[in-house]
């Protein structure tokens, strides 16, 4: 290999590394929480803090004023500070630290500049903004999913090739006083990687600075970089490859190089060299213990840790009941379930609740009635195994068929009407003939009688038909297959021979394998809001940003299936004949629970059902009362609260339908008996787990590699959105402007694509409702077993050993151990 070739591979490796640093951004139709720092996991938390601070000016901490407030209101005490200093091995003591904090003016960290930044300063013209604007506009056109009726003509080409075509016609640089750029554009290399090389050469970026420059360039257009990273993620799931992100990087760098080439001035050149020097100058390394922000953030987390640990270890041990429980209810691990489970257990003493990921372990994709496309209905890391179709209960093939055809026809008419409304030649007549109709719509949408547009799940179907829809466990008869949309030859439903295995893993993963109650309730969750671009962010993340209803109903159908039960018996799990599984949906906006297949219950269970419903009603009220305080309704009567929560589900102007997972800070893997007497204030994900039942710790491994990572992603989404909302959050919700159909939102008129959460989801106008802290994971299992999982899984190891989350172990006797970054366990 000669030197040039070595260079070659080196550059593409560098490019690859920079691209992998970017976290994917899911579209708003499935707004799944993503850890924005996902690509920095090979660094420790505090290294990543430095990296980001150096490049963007904002690291992983809040401004000092935030922590000062926490000190003032007692959320950070001197004890916490002392602990933090010890933990970070600081040479300071608390008084020294306090003195430093008092003296210190906020250190100004200037982000590393790109060429456009230097040029902007030189010419007093915001070139960086202009470039981001141009790229963002271009990407919106290239990736548009249907907003524009006139689609961009080069979408079959790669992002880079299409851009060259687009840019050669685009005259916007001309308005900025830049002439003849086409000469440069037509000389550009054919491939993105060569273009990157050309640009780096043109800008004379020293080899030592390349890594950071590439990363800084991608971060400057971070929203679209996230989108292209998502496309790559999806392609990889299909075992394909997508290089849009590399093309995007090339485009961003070409802008720099292009401007550099056109603006060749001596003084500018000097400034540029100075800027470059900052890249090559190594970062000033201050030991973590001497960084004020790091100490403050650590102390802030320690305060919560101590409360939580104390609460867990002093909670009264619950003695195991002898008699059979009336109802067992399984909820999603979501922090919102914690509030509800506590309420439910309070109103009904002989009730047992469980927590597991809200897709109930069934790896499925779901085909809505009349649709030709399956929606993934499982965590984003997993690949679906089953294709489940939505079907019409108690319908013969001809009836199903009739409704499918009707739905499709209605939707086609709806689409045609939409085009009629928005076409250049017809929108005028539309307004005069049908615009007045909007007066009625304005009134009824405003009051909340109607939704601005039909709900996607029931679009084109009358209410009575919608109520009969459910997921289908069995495959279709061939007759229906022909007519319906599940018409591929692929098998749909769960095959009978796989059912016992599937059922067993569901039950084992949630730790429910004996002592079944007469009614076992599986509760998925979903949120209700209207006119909310980020609505799916409030739905179940384990169901890929959708309601958990289908998963719960399918799991229940599976476990009520007599053949499955027979198979389970062979696997040593006996479900009594008088045990029935019922599915429910927890509406997290109103805290109401809707029950579905209650018709499976025989008359002998009628009283149980009545009892259950009344408990659920009471529990819902309790849960609402608790959540009301976050909305500032501490003293309001229950009826006011209920009415207000109802309003939030249908008020089209509501920017905070609910608080979602705000406040999340802990993930507890233990039997419910460990936490049942703790008030975890809706801040903890609860996963039921009893290690005594977990032979060879397969379940533990699953929990640590899947739900724990999902919880961590959610936790970091909130963290990033709060710490650096400008880059990892989506800004002000009242300015949201949906781009590309369902790609995402812009804030206001333009700028970069925005991911993450809006400020309204974190802050109530007076104070931050969320508290940015890393996830505190508590696992009740032998330490060696935990260590074993860590040793075998790189992703888990990175998270724990690079301190992206805090890991604790709960011992049999309730004492708590903490795993340090030195990999050693110490008693907490």
């Amino acid at each position, binding site marked *: 290999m000669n030197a040039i070739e070595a260079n070659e591979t080196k550059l593409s490796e560098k490019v690859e590394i920079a691209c992998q640093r970017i976290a994917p951004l899911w579209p708003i139709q499935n707004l799944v929480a993503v850890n924005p720092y996902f690509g920095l996991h090979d660094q420790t938390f505090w290294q990543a803090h430095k990296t980001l601070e150096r490049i963007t000016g904002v690291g992983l901490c809040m401004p000092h004023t935030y922590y000062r407030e926490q000190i003032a209101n007692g959320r950070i005490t001197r004890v916490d500070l002392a602990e933090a200093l010890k933990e970070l091995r600081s040479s300071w003591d608390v008084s020294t630290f306090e003195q430093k904090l008092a003296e210190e003016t906020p250190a100004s960290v200037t982000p590393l500049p790109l060429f456009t930044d230097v040029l902007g300063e030189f010419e007093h013209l915001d070139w960086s903004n202009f470039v981001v604007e141009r790229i963002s506009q271009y990407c919106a056109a290239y990736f548009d999913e249907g907003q524009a009726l006139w689609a961009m003509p080069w979408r079959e080409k790669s992002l880079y090739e299409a851009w060259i075509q687009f840019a050669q016609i685009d005259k916007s640089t001309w308005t900025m006083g830049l002439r003849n750029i086409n000469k440069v554009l037509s000389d550009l290399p054919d491939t993105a990687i060569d273009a990157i090389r050309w640009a780096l050469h043109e800008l004379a970026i020293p080899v030592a600075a390349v890594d950071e420059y590439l990363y800084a360039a991608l971060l400057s257009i971070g929203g679209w970089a996230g989108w292209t990273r998502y496309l790559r993620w999806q392609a990889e799931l299909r075992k394909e490859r997508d290089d849009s992100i590399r093309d995007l990087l090339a485009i961003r760098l070409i802008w720099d190089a292009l401007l550099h080439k056109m603006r060749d001035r001596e003084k500018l050149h000097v400034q540029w060299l100075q800027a470059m020097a900052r890249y090559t100058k190594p970062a000033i390394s201050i030991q973590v213990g001497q960084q004020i922000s790091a100490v403050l953030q650590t102390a802030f987390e320690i305060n919560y840790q101590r409360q939580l640990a104390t609460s867990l270890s002093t909670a009264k041990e619950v003695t195991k009941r002898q008699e059979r429980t009336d109802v067992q209810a399984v909820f999603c691990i979501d922090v919102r379930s914690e509030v509800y489970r506590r309420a439910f257990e309070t109103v009904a003493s002989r009730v047992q609740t469980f927590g597991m990921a809200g897709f109930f372990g069934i790896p499925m994709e779901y085909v809505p009635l009349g649709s030709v496309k399956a929606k993934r209905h499982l965590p984003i890391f997993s690949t679906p195994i089953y294709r489940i179709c939505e079907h019409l209960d108690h319908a013969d093939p001809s009836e199903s068929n009739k409704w499918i055809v009707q739905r499709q026809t209605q939707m086609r008419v709806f689409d045609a009407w939409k085009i009629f409304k928005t076409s250049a030649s017809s929108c005028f007549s539309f307004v005069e003939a049908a615009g007045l109709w909007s007066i009625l719509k304005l009134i009824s949408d405003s009051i909340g009688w109607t939704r601005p547009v039909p709900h996607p799940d029931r679009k084109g179907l009358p209410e009575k038909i919608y109520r009969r829809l459910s997921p289908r466990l069995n495959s279709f008869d061939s007759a229906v297959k022909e007519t319906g949309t599940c018409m591929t030859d692929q098998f749909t439903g769960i095959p009978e021979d796989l059912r016992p295995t599937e059922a067993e893993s569901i039950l084992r993963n949630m730790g429910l394998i004996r002592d079944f109650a007469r009614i076992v309730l599986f509760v998925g969750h979903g949120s209700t809001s209207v006119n909310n671009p980020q609505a799916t962010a409030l739905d179940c993340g384990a169901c890929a940003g959708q309601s958990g209803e289908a998963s719960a109903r399918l799991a229940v159908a599976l476990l009520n299936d007599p053949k499955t039960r027979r198979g389970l018996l062979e696997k040593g799990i006996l479900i009594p004949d008088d045990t029935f599984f019922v599915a429910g949906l927890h509406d997290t906006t109103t805290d109401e629970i809707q029950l579905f297949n209650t018709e499976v219950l025989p008359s002998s269970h009628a009283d149980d059902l009545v009892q259950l419903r009344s408990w659920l009603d009471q529990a819902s009220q309790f849960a609402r009362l608790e959540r009301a305080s976050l909305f500032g309704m501490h003293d309001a009567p229950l009826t006011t609260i209920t009415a207000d929560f109802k309003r939030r589900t249908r008020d089209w102007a509501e920017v905070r339908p609910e608080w979602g997972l705000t406040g999340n800070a802990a993930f507890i893997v233990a039997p419910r008996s460990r936490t049942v007497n703790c008030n975890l204030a809706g801040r903890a994900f609860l996963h039921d787990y009893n290690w005594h039942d977990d032979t060879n710790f397969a379940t533990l491994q699953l929990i640590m590699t899947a739900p724990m990572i999902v919880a961590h992603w959610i936790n970091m989404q909130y963290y990033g959105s709060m710490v650096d909302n400008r880059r990892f959050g989506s800004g002000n919700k009242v300015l949201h402007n*949906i781009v590309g159909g369902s790609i995402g939102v812009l804030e206001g*008129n333009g700028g970069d694509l925005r991911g993450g959460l809006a400020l309204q989801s974190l802050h109530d106008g007076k104070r931050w409702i969320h508290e940015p802290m890393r996830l505190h994971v508590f696992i009740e299992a032998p330490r060696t077993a935990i260590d074993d999982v860590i040793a075998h899984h790189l992703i888990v190891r990175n998270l724990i050993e690079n301190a992206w989350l805090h890991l604790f172990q709960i011992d049999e006797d309730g004492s708590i151990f903490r795993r340090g970054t030195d990999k050693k366990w110490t008693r907490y």
Partner: protein
Amino acid sequence: MGSVWFSLICAIGATGTYAEGMVQSTPYFSFDLPFGLGQLAIRTEVNDLTVVMLLLVAFVGFIVARYSYTYLDGDSRRMYFLRWFSLTLGSFFTLIASGNMWFFMLSWIATSLFLNKLLAFYRDRPGAVLATRKKYLLDRIADVSLFAAFVLIVRTLHTSQFSHIATALTVMHGSLPVALQIASGLLVLSAVLKSAQFPFHGWLIQVMEAPTPVSALLHAGIIYTGAFLILRMAPLLARVEWAQGALILIGLFALAMTSLMMMTSTQIKGSLAYSTGAQMGFMLLECGLGLYSLAVLHIISHSAYKAHAFLSSGSVVDHYRAPVLPHVSRTATVWNLVLSLLLSTFIASGIGILVGVHFSKQRALIVMGVILTVAISQLFLQVLNKQKIKKSRLLLTMIVVSLSISTAYFGLDALFEVLLGRSFPAVQVLTNTLGNLLLGLITAVFVGLLLIQQMLPRIRYYPFWQYVYVHLYNGLYMDMLLTRWVQKFGPIGYLEFVQKVKEGRSQEVIS
């Protein structure tokens, strides 16, 4: 909030009294102006137009204010917002109700200044400041132009009352004096500037930098300031043929350009804003054709439609969450085009005749009929172009839909003619060759738009249309040039912003 409730109740009350037959013009205060400029009077002009507009604005204002109250929950400046919102709405009310030109002018300026407070609600957003400044500068040009027009009119006709213009004009025969001709031109200019017509449309597209309700208020109300001026001045403008012609041409050009830009827009709010620009062009076109009551219908319908569209713009994502329909390949053929045009001509003209439109007498209405025909052919084409799918049921639905549309269209037109016809001068169609040319041109533009859209799947790959696409997507650069121009009036604030970011204080910028 209270003030908005109050205004809605007042407007409903006013309509009630008006319906009872209390037609009067009440001066509350008047003040003589020097230099033969007549009087400045707070005088309400109560006529059909006033009442209809008041009702509309009060209704939309009420809905939008109610929305804002919830929408801005938690914003420390919510009350500030609502205060300026009420003031803007209030001054727009006085503009509508004013019977005196000078008082109209004061309200005109006040509305613009108050609205600016809302547009720049987020003062730290450079984009918001930039758009506001563009609007500010264009509005001041419109002010000067309006002032000059009023001076000319008042000095020539010796009245500063809108209601007296028509009478004052009846004594003049033949073509009007130069002063009035110039005044007409200035009025058209003011209206065009206020209506954000291409190429002055940039700020309208950028007001997304303000909270959604501001866009709703603007697009559903304030943007009609210019159109309203034309309606108030209809007696004068109807006498100046070239001014009418100018309105038609400007409107037609703007609507063609802006509606094509709308088709390329990839943002929901951007596309809604372009649509407003186009709709305003269409309305100016109707005014130019002398179809005043139709223009009022357009204002009302569009106002309600656009307010709803903006307020519900967050719902567009639901469309993409719905089930995915089986793919249907489409091919546009000439035969389908001819067939659907025939079908829609049959339906539109049939309904038109049934409703009692005399196409032979109202030549401007023929144009409207053609536009309607082109529009509903769009519905048929969507069905006919689909391949390998049972079309009978869809086609039947489309026939029903287009029958209803045509009925609604002509029905409403007739209704508004009855309601408002007496407020406006009789339709004077451009009868000369030039007039015929204009009518032909309008038809050609609409058919052209239809053709372009039909052919797009194929022609968009041709180099020429690639050029057209990129330039349209960039708004033909008019706004970028305007941006550079207004930046000359001082820094926009991004430098402070950049400074903050550079000093590592970007966290402050957001909170």
